């Protein structure tokens, strides 16, 4: 266990972020590295609970008390072994996961939670530094071939697991580079792309094959794919964004976040983007619709581009500063959270509904909104406009970051004929097998839009299901 009574002795601390005016000039990650002793001290706060609610709160079931203890005891090699036992890519979750484990931490009942995520990322970064993370190709091959569609976290985790089980795995990616949302959704200031490359190289070394630029269903049909592979895993994500059906939506300057963010990442990666396609916030008055993580990612990017101003609007009312009574521990806490981007500037406003957009010359110039209040109408929650709160705000760039509505249906899914649920997600059974035998689904495509930690968890479980179906039994965890 961690240090006996460590939680009484030490307080929660996190490493400092780089100064805002420094980091706004680059796209590098915002956290400073931290001395080992500080990490160990934080790990020492772990109480090694009889029921580790953190472990329960983690979709991957990360063995949090175990590696906290190992870190406290300075056994980093042991720690990465335990961490890797449940998590294929701790360097991703350690940077990107909102860490539902932390609000579930027992210490958070009456104190500040253990800095679980920080310990996690420290372990994996240290492990890479020490050279402990090495490719581990399987000892034997089963001769089975599996195609994984999509190279986001779900697809990559699934591929690595299936490969460990000895199957020959090929990952197909529509884009020109591997990584999915990790590559083109997450900004570099949250995840520098060498971190991704490093992991992909390891997967390759272990024997996973990657095919980029393949739009399955277009470049090669589902039927061909199925003929060539013993199993297919659909991990193409939930790429279908929620739209804003208001007048003026068609105006130029109104874009989905997922049009803006990938371009940013490409630019940071050094790709040249054609002038005409460029979608820049420089000097613009920006409004971001949607108060979630994608919105925050847009926010950080527009700051760095040098926007004139930025507002982020959210339909829901502002969450409380601390847990509401009906949102008890160990549930995910619905409280006001600020990401690094919020620290960097901009205005956040809540309870706002966009009524329409207007402009001239086909370009957006204004957003018209109204304040709303959630009310139950005929038993259903609705957002009712408050009279007299209508307002107008100047805007040159409106980014829509209002979430996603399941996988893109046209193309492959239609061709394969897999069943979808009412929300448009792929239906799968306990083995993660879809209505079409031999076809499996994992990640946002099955679960709907969610967290990276869920994507990895889904990828692992789909691999286990797929292996069981292929082999009759499975020893994958």
């Amino acid at each position, binding site marked *: 266990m961690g240090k*006996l009574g460590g939680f009484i002795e030490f307080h929660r601390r996190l490493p400092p972020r780089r100064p805002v005016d420094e980091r706004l000039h680059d796209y590098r990650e915002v956290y400073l590295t931290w001395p080992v002793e500080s990490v160990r001290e934080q790990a020492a706060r772990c109480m090694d609970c009889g*029921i580790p609610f953190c472990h*329960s*709160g983690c979709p991957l*079931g990360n063995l949090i008390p175990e590696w906290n203890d190992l870190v406290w005891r300075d056994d980093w090699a042991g720690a990465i072994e335990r961490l890797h036992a449940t998590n294929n890519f701790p360097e991703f979750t350690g940077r990107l996961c909102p860490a539902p484990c932390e609000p579930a931490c027992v210490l958070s009942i009456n104190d500040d939670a253990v800095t679980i995520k920080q310990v996690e990322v420290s372990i994996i970064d240290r492990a890479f530094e020490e050279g402990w993370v090495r490719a*581990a190709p399987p000892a034997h091959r089963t001769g089975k071939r599996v195609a994984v569609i999509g190279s986001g976290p779900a697809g990559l985790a699934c591929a690595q697991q299936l490969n460990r089980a000895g199957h020959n795995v090929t990952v197909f990616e529509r884009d020109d580079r591997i990584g999915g949302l990790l590559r083109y959704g997450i900004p570099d200031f949250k995840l520098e792309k060498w971190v991704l490359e490093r992991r992909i190289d390891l997967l390759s070394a272990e024997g996973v094959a990657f095919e980029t630029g393949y739009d399955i269903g277009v470049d090669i049909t589902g039927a061909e794919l199925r003929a060539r592979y013993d199993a297919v895993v659909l991990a193409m994500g939930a790429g279908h964004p929620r739209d804003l059906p208001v007048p003026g939506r068609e105006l130029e300057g109104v874009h989905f976040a997922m049009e803006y963010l990938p371009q940013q990442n490409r630019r940071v990666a050094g790709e040249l983007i054609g002038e005409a396609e460029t979608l820049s916030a420089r000097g613009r008055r920006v409004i971001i619709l949607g108060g979630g993580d994608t919105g925050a990612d847009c926010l950080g990017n527009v700051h760095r581009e040098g926007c004139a101003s930025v507002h982020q609007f959210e339909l829901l009312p502002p969450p409380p500063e601390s847990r509401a009574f009906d949102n008890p521990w160990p*549930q995910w806490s619905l409280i006001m959270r600020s990401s690094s981007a919020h620290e960097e500037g901009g205005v956040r406003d809540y309870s706002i509904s966009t009524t329409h957009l207007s402009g001239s010359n086909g370009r957006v110039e204004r957003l018209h909104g109204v304040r709303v209040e959630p009310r139950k109408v005929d038993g259903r929650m609705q957002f009712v406009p408050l009279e007299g709160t209508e307002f107008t705000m100047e805007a040159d760039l409106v980014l829509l970051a209002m979430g996603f509505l399941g996988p893109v249906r046209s193309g492959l899914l239609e061709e394969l004929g897999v069943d979808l649920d009412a929300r448009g997600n792929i239906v799968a059974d306990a083995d993660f097998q879809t209505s079409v035998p031999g076809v499996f689904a994992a990640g946002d495509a099955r679960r709907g839009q969610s967290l990276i930690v869920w994507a990895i968890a889904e990828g692992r479980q789909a691999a286990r299901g797929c292996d069981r179906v292929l082999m009759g039994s499975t*020893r994958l965890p």
Partner: protein
Amino acid sequence: MTRLIPQGLYDPRFEHDACGVAFVASIAGERSNAIVGRGLEALVNLGHRGACGCDPETGDGAGILIQIPDAFLRRAAGIDLPAPDAYGLGMVFLPTEPEERRRCEQIVERCCDDEGLRLLGWRDVPHDPMAVGHVSRSGMPAIRQFFVAAVGVHGDVLERRLYVLRRAIERRRDEAPPAGDELFYICSLSCRTVVYKGMLMAQQIAPFFPDLVDHSVISALALVHSRFSTNVLPRWDIAQPFRYSAHNGEINTVRGNVNWMRARQSKFKSALYGADIEKLRPVIDETGSDSAQFDNALEMLALTGRPPHHAIMMMIPEAWHQNHEMDEERRAFYEFHSALLEPWDGPAAIAFTDGRVIGATLDRNGLRPARYVVTDDGLVVMASEVGVLDLPEERIVRKWRLEPGKILLVDTEQGRIVDDDNAKAELARAHPYRDWIRQGTVYLHELEDTEHPAEPDAGTLLIRQQAFGYTQEDIKFLLAPMMTTGEEPIGSMGNDTPPAVLSDHPQPLFNYFKQLFAQVTNPPIDPIREQMVMSLVTSLGAGGNLLEQAPSQARRLEMPHPILTNADLGKIRHVTQRDFPAATISAVFHLGEERGLERGLRRICRMASQRIAEGYAVLVLSDRNIDAAHAPIPSLLAVGAVHHHLIREQTRTGIGLVIETGEAREVQHFALLMGYGAEAVNPYLAFETLHDLARRGLLPPGIDAHKAEATFVKAICKGLLKTISKMGISTIQSYCGAQIFEAIGVGREVIDRHFCGTASRIGGVGLDVIAQEALARHSDAYPEVRVGAPVLQEGGQYQWRRNGEFHQWNPETIAKLQHAVKANDESWYREYAALVDDQTRQLKALRGLFRFREDREPIPLEEVEPASEIVRRFATGAMSLGSISTEAHETLAIAMNRLGGKSNTGEGGEDPRRYERDPNGDWRRSAIKQVASARFGVNANYLVNAAELQIKIAQGAKPGEGGQLPGHKVDEYIARLRYSTPGVGLISPPPHHDIYSIEDLAQLIHDLKNVNPQARVSVKLVAEVGVGTVAAGVSKAHADHIVIAGYEGGTGASPLSSIKHAGIPWEIGLAETQQVMVLNDLRSRVTLQADGQMKTGRDVVVGALLGAEEFGFATSALVASGCIMMRVCHLNTCPVGIATQDPRLRERYAGKAEYVVNFMTFLAEDVRRHMARLGFRRFDEMIGRTDVLDVREAVEHWKAQGLDFSLLLHRPQVPASVDVRRMIEQDHGLEKALDHELIALARPAIEHGHPVQIDLPIRNGNRTVGGMLSGEIARRHGEAGLPNDTIRIDLRGSAGQSFGAWLAHGVTLTLHGDANDYVGKGLSGGRLVVRPPDSSRIVAEDNIIVGNVVLYGATGGEAFFRGVAGERFCVRNSGAIAVVEGVGDHGCEYMTGGVALILGRTGRNFAAGMSGGIAYVLDEDGGFAGRCNMGMIELEAVETEEDADRLRSLLQHHADYTGSPVAERLLADFPAAQSRFLKVMPIDYKRVLTARRTVPLEMVG
């Protein structure tokens, strides 16, 4: 003969008895009827030690053994008899049905013919059926005597012929037993003695058997006995005395003793019997009680050439291993005989006789009282109590007690008393035992290593760990703590995982077995403080012909303990080859084979027989040879199979059985392997694991692999001692093969073949499932496809893990319950209950396999009695202030008082400020006041402020164990409540030192009832097989309330092996209790409560249907208060402020009484919904209605299919008049208390403070004198009582037990005479003086004046005893000041405060566990230090002025109050006297006192 047939969960095997035993003898051998009369009189005066059941006129059995009254019989029988010792007299119970009787008599006659004896005739023994009660009458046999003789045969030769004859008759009887309930039983058949006995009460013996009052019925000795048993079914045959002995106590190891005897008897040879020896086998009638089986063995040893006391010394040896004061010859005698016979271990006062010598002995720890007096006219009276006969004081020349392990012998032929030393010295010198041992015995630890033991193989370690089912938790929670601390690992908060048979994960076979433990009928032992009576010494290769004494029998290989290192095993394999050739048998089975495990077992059994035939002396079962094709046979199965196979073949003795296994790694494993017959264990993989940790640099600093190995062995040994001590067993030798376990979920066939005799009441898995589990582990280790690097499974037994073992308390259930009670939102509760009930329906607990019948007519919810009534049946668990914080403790009390339920103080006293209500009407007082072994703060005031007094016999988390509150948890406040010193740790001993037996419990119940007659007295038991019979006994001991706790419960800290492996689920224990009590019509007198992981209304309803009226909630109540199952109660770091005394953490406590109120209300509403569905309007209607329960039809679980709950749901067939729930009050007999008279006489003092002086006679039937009076005083005057000496009472005679119990301040009791056990129990400020009467001729300081366990749990007051006290003087004294002139063993044990002044010799083990207070001991012979347990104290000279003043003042008071010449002599030259005293000072106490520079002790007077 009546063989009681088990029904439902009732099994007569588990009956217990305890009793009064006595003998009266004329030293000179003068025969008279007066001796017979006095024997019976003594027994009548021990009447309170016997018991009666539902029929107050029916006793549990009583009887008398006397010499054959030759003259009387010649006249009465009208038969021409040969000379007095030339004929045998048989006393026999026969069937009442004439034809059947005739048939039995013909058996006798025919056997006489066969054995060459002449049957001289029969005599009807006159008896008066109307002298006994109706239950007794209903089972009464015909009672006859017969006479046999043979020409030229008499004396010893005849006696042996008669023995053979009796065995022949018994064998023939067993071939065709009498029909129905009829009895054919030979009470005695001897040319010297005759036994008159029956299902009688003491006072009924003489009226029933008119023979006995005939003046010509004369005897020089009378051995008498009356039983207090747990059964009441009519059984005439188990009354005592038996043929050679009468026993007060229990034989804990009887199962093993009988097995070993059975194994041994094939080697019997005796010149005295020749071919007849065959007829003696089997020596032991296994249907008899433990005492009867003991008698069988004693008789056999005594009739094959050894004097009876020689046999007794073999069967109940003294604790000699660690007694360095014992002379060498006697040690050699014991050591030699230990190779022949393992001790029959358990508490015992045994009186024995062969008709010429009569004697008595006590077990090694002195756990039974036995006092004797000798008169100047040559009479010896030995009895459980003093004062059983009215003997003129001036005729008494000696008053003494039997001491632990000592023998008293009266040789009526030689006309002398032989004392212990002489009796034993004669025997010890009979042979050169020391030389025999020197020549024959090899000591393993003295042998040189000759080979390098197998090197650990790190490469394959992980795989082998997997094959044996190692988990990461095994390393983290078991091995790591053991190898660093040398102690058993500790955990907290009970066990909420499913029993092994319901676990989805493969379980080691070990987990199917649950440890049994001593409760009520015999005490567990403290293996640390009383280690001197314990021994782990083990030997291999011992045995041979039990019936001879020869040097060859000393040939054996002895080991200091049964855990073998690899080097040790190497020595056994190679070094001792010449003397003890060892053969290894591979205990693995082939994967591919059909029924591979079964074949494997057959193979190892066959190999074992073969190796024995080839002459090997040691068999090593080894599972080292596993590989991809071979899985290990579960080591326990291998051991059980071979052990029982060899017993069946009668080749087990003389062979050493050793197991070399990778499986054993925790205490339970070793305990089981030995309990089922392994004499030594080599846990090679555990050692390799430690070496591997060392290799990887993971051992703590300062510990290398060898140190870790040694420390691990030490921890296992300690754990073994603890495990056997829980069962009341002292030596591993008698534990070996004693099978003190119950199986939960093991199928009949497996038990009957490999674990014969083990209780397994719900059936369960067969070899197929056991194999499947072994194969699952094997396939982890050797998978067909390996994915990634091998890694150990997480485990999840001790901490919840997502992929680990299932826990009922898990993130979901805890979160939902806590939100429900905080928000007072029943919908969350329902979600919680749905999760729990669904879990149980998914087979996670036994109750989950039950289903409510669906054919019941529902009723509207409104018609069901209201929740406010139901919550009155709820209580919270016993959690002490100390284990939990004040805040948490008071939350529970307030909540339960608001509801009208009950909270429980736990073992830690209670702050009197809580006795008053708060201004808002809330009450912080706990309705239940617990009385546990350490009696913290249990004074008169505490006792009167209770609605219920709960005697905690055992607790679910660690039945049979004591506890320890570490010093850092003892703050000022807790110390004040517990009458101890802040910062000094507190020890709770495993047993109550005033409860070693059921009659002792009856006494404590009586004591408590006296102090507070309004409170109901409750006894808390833990479920195990036989708990029903114990509960029946407890009901007969007049408890008002019984708690049956399941093993899963438990909130505080306990050793992990106890949390997991001791006790059984409450479902079985409760069902057994209900059945046995209904069967005996004892149920109607007591209320039954069940507890142990109760969580929902469904649990409550299942409990009610199985028989419970009330319900306890501990863990769930804590969870409602904010507990999140941190399971660190033992570390004082509870982050929610519940199980901690750290003020920083207590601040975090956020529980509220409302939460607990909400929880209990939700529960009650939940109960109501079930009741409505089942059509019950009143809760009472549900109780005992097992017919409403069904077992789930489709048991889908892969392991649970063999389970069979029919025994559990059995409803005893009883007449309609027999109630199945509490309907009537117990009769406590309080109206007989002397205190009524005392209270009446003291009225002016109690009411107005006017001093009074009272003078009365007293006798041993006057028990608990002063208790009720003190209760009265406390009720009116609280803790302070009355001013000094307000009530002065002088009493004359022998006082009964518990004289002056809880005596309140202001009362002075002066006894002119002597007293029995428990004088001054709980002394609460009063003054006690016991001095010999003026007429006495004895030298007081050389004689005993008060019995055992004096001043147990005293919190204040003074006591002066002019004479010697028995064992355990001042045990757990926390404040009284006492002066005495000598004490027995274990003086001042566990003392925490007060002063003891000992003006004479002490016994051994003085000051064991003494953490506070001071003792001054007069060390005349300079040997005191050697008799002291130096574990916690140091000895100082009496030098300071403060000490000198205190000493002088105490001596002065002693002289003044008792007239003691000893005190006067010492005072006469005080400076010289002072230098002869030693001061006993607890080290911690001194440290704390020095730090505080305070003097907490007030001066006397």
